[in-house]
């Protein structure tokens, strides 16, 4: 028998805030997290736009020998997870006595790998890399660290699916809980925000060069979009079986009702319409959801010419005459990449729980491809009880999640 999978906790560390309340307010007021970085310009970036993500101080929580294993992205993941566990009412005693898993999205550890190998090459000695280097430079660094720090004894796995990584992680966790293999899984995604992690990406000329107007640079679906802005941080959601949540009197915030996914089988970086459309279609079909039940779509749209246009076409193809409200929160956050699936689920949850849709910043004019969908340009009060969140990535990997509201007690 399939079990109901609910969300019982959320935690986030992003350019929009370090608590759920701060992020909610930033979404509502249309705050932009995007800045110009002189450091990147001086270093030779074509686009020096990025987001303003503060590094958390973990000294109060973790001894030096434990922090030594945590690269930037794992620091974000740790602080977001602490908050999510607290939000879910899960303390260390519970984690010690129950089988709780972790399934997190991550797809790079560039800076830590670079630093370790720089030391190795400088001193021609492998010991010069330091004790943390191996644990910091593996792609599973977040799950390996957090599983040890929180003493987790359930599934321990990193999902790497490019910019859909954490959406896939949530989808997989949903399946494991639905099918009775796990009762509770810490899910999420984190993204290193340092310049080394995206230097080669900048080299592809994929980033916006609207450097004189950082807050206007991320403009998903707008006619004058000219590229994405790389972001970062960490976002954690606690997924749990409904029975488990009720048994321990946990806050039930929402229900993950379906996951859909697909591969484009096409170009490594150029998206198409058919792949995303199949992800949307499969997600709706798997959950037995009628399109008119969806009150809001959080689009993947990153502010690139090709990506936004194809996604708009895919949404229009599946939703037809039903003009569901669509926005891309990347207009505020830039592209949070490995973190985006999880952070955007949280952004959408905050909107759903607080009865608003955050406006798609800088959407002034559609173009021929994006005119087919209903993009909400300014924040508006809105009640909806179900949303759909898209995440797509390099290699043509697509993931779609649908979440239903559950009224707070």
């Amino acid at each position, binding site marked *: 028998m399939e079990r109901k999978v609910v969300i019982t906790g959320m935690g986030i560390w992003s350019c929009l805030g370090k608590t759920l309340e701060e992020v909610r307010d930033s979404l509502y007021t249309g705050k932009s997290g995007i800045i110009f970085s002189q450091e990147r310009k001086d270093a030779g970036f074509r686009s020096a736009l990025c987001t303003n993500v503060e590094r958390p101080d973990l*000294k109060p929580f973790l*001894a*030096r*020998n434990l922090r*030594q294993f945590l690269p930037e992205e794992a620091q974000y993941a740790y602080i977001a997870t602490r908050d999510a566990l607290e939000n879910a009412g899960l303390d260390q005693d519970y984690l010690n006595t129950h089988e709780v898993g972790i399934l997190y999205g991550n797809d790079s550890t560039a800076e830590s790998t670079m630093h370790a190998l720089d*030391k190795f090459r400088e*001193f021609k*000695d492998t*010991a*010069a*890399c*330091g*004790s*943390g280097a191996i644990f910091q430079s593996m792609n599973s660094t977040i799950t390996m660290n957090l599983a040890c720090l929180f003493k987790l004894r359930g599934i321990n796995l990193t999902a790497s699916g490019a910019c859909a990584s954490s959406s896939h992680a949530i989808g997989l966790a949903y399946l494991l809980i639905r099918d009775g293999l796990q009762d509770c899984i810490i899910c999420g995604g984190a993204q290193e925000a340092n310049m080394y992690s995206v230097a080669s990406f900048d080299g592809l000329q994929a980033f916006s060069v609207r450097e004189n107007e950082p807050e206007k640079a991320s403009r998903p679906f707008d006619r004058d979009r000219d590229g994405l802005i790389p972001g970062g941080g960490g976002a954690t959601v606690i997924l749990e079986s409904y029975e488990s949540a009720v048994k321990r009197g946990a806050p039930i915030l929402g229900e993950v009702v379906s996951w859909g996914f697909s591969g484009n089988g096409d170009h490594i970086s150029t998206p198409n319409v058919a792949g995303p459309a199949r992800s949307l279609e499969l997600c709706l079909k798997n959950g037995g959801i009628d399109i008119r039940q969806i009150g809001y779509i959080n689009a993947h749209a990153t502010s690139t010419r090709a990506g936004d246009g194809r996604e708009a076409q895919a949404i229009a193809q599946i939703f037809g005459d039903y003009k569901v409200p669509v926005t891309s929160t990347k207009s505020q956050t830039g592209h949070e990449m490995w973190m985006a699936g999880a952070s955007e689920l949280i952004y959408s949850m905050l909107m759903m729980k607080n009865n608003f849709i955050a406006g798609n910043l800088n959407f002034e004019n559609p173009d021929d491809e994006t005119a087919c969908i209903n993009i909400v340009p300014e924040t508006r009060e809105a009640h909806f009880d179900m949303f759909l969140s898209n995440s797509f990535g390099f290699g043509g990997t697509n993931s779609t999640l649908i979440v239903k509201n559950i009224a707070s007690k």
Partner: protein
Amino acid sequence: MTRDEIIKQVNGVLAEEFEVEENTLSPEANVKETLSLDSLSLVDLVAIIQQTYKIKIPVTDLRSIQTFNDLYNYIESHLAQ
């Protein structure tokens, strides 16, 4: 570099790296215990001495370094070479 200068610098670097109070690093104190070093973080001690003094401490020599005095002696003798 005089021995006093070595002691001052070593204590400063280790206190910062391993986040301990500098006044706990007395000459007779045990290095591993004072700095809370386990088998992994011992690698960091080797790395920081190497980065600061360009001296590589082989594992066989590391075993003989028990107290901070042993460490100062090791650095002083190898700097002189």
